[in-house]
């Protein structure tokens, strides 16, 4: 039921609209020349004023605004670039100084080290010499003692044996005969005592 009414409404309304279109008598108002001159006149006045004001006052201003902004921005960029370059050179300088001072420190260290090593070597040589001398001295003494030892021992042996014989026998005996015997003995046993 409602559907039917709805479709009827739609249908009759289209009829109504059609009637309106057909009832229109004037056609397009655009083709009515009554106000053509008025429109041309006012168009030229308004558009002319618009053109003159825009071209003489407003557009140059906008253009200069844009230029100004562009130049300002490019100036700022340039300044930033310059500052960056300056900071880069400063950084380089700083790096160089650091490198230089590092090298210097290395040099000083190396020099000190060489000097210390030299000193140590010199002292070591002196000490070595002294030690060698002392060793030589000691060796000399030892060899002297070694060389003197058999004679002394022989002497002691002769004296001891003469005293021993005197005590045992009560007679004095010629030292020379005793020494001959001792020499003989010691020659026999030499290798046994001294190992050579």
């Amino acid at each position, binding site marked *: 039921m409602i559907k039917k009414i709805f479709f009827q409404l739609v249908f009759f309304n289209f009829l109504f*609209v059609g009637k309106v279109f057909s009832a229109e008598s004037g056609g397009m108002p655009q083709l009515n020349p009554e106000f053509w001159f008025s429109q041309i006149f006012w168009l030229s006045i308004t558009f002319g004023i618009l053109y003159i004001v*825009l071209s003489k006052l407003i557009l140059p201003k906008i253009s200069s605004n844009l230029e100004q902004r562009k130049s300002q921005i490019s100036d700022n960029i340039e300044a930033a670039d310059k500052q960056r370059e300056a900071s880069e050179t400063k950084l380089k300088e700083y790096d160089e100084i650091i490198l230089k001072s590092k090298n210097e420190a290395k040099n000083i260290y190396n020099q000190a080290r060489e000097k210390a090593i030299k000193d140590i070597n010199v002292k070591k040589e002196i000490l070595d010499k002294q030690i060698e001398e002392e060793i030589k001295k000691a060796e000399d003494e030892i060899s002297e003692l070694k060389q003197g030892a058999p004679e002394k021992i022989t002497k002691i042996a002769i004296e001891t044996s003469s005293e021993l014989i005197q005590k045992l026998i009560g007679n004095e005996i010629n030292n020379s005969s005793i020494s001959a015997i001792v020499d003989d003995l010691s020659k026999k046993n030499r290798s046994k005592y001294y190992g050579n």
Partner: protein
Amino acid sequence: MAANPMSQFEVYRIGPEIKVGAFDISFTNASLFMVISSLAILIIFNLGSKKNSLLPNKLQLLTELSYNFVSKMIGDTAGSKARPYFAFIFSLFMFVLFCNMFGMIPYTFTVTSHIIVTFMLATFIFIGVTIIGFIKHGFGYLKLFVPSGVPIVLLPLIVVIEIISYLSRPISLSVRLFANMMAGHTMMKVFGGFVISLGIVGGWLPLSFSVALTGLEILVAFLQAYVFAILTCIYLNDALNLHH
């Protein structure tokens, strides 16, 4: 009156009748909207260019964006030689755009929906471009009608076609804008009329159409202004850089 979709295009006098000789130059509703559009353009662009801050405010951004937009449009189509005509094309684009856009407000009058207005603009452009062409190239400008690399046999035909197409430029330019604006507004009016006549029951469908059409018409309003301006640039390019 409300039911007639064409009644929105009617021109009527506002104030007294002014006559200069045989010509009626009375102030009409069309004149009113031309004045309003021009004033709106001037006010917006004046405010937008008044003070120059490094970070532009919204209005300044709008003016600078439109400046760059038109500048780029001219540079792309007509090259650097068209620089002196920048102000004219800018005014033309803005005038047509604002007239179209003001026409989208209900109960307003669309200036550009009148053939006489668009035809006057197009004729002015046509005559101006032709004069520029003859000044720049002398009679060499007529070479525009003789394309290079065409067989001799076809040449008379081509020349005739070229001349006709050249002469029909103001008509095509004006009719394109006028017909688009008129058709769009008529259609919106018709759908609006359907909403009223179908009432609360059936009016929703045309209403939704009407809403969609409004969006479309705003797009068309911008697009037609753009097309009008860019065709002007192309004609100017023909006159400035003669290579056909």
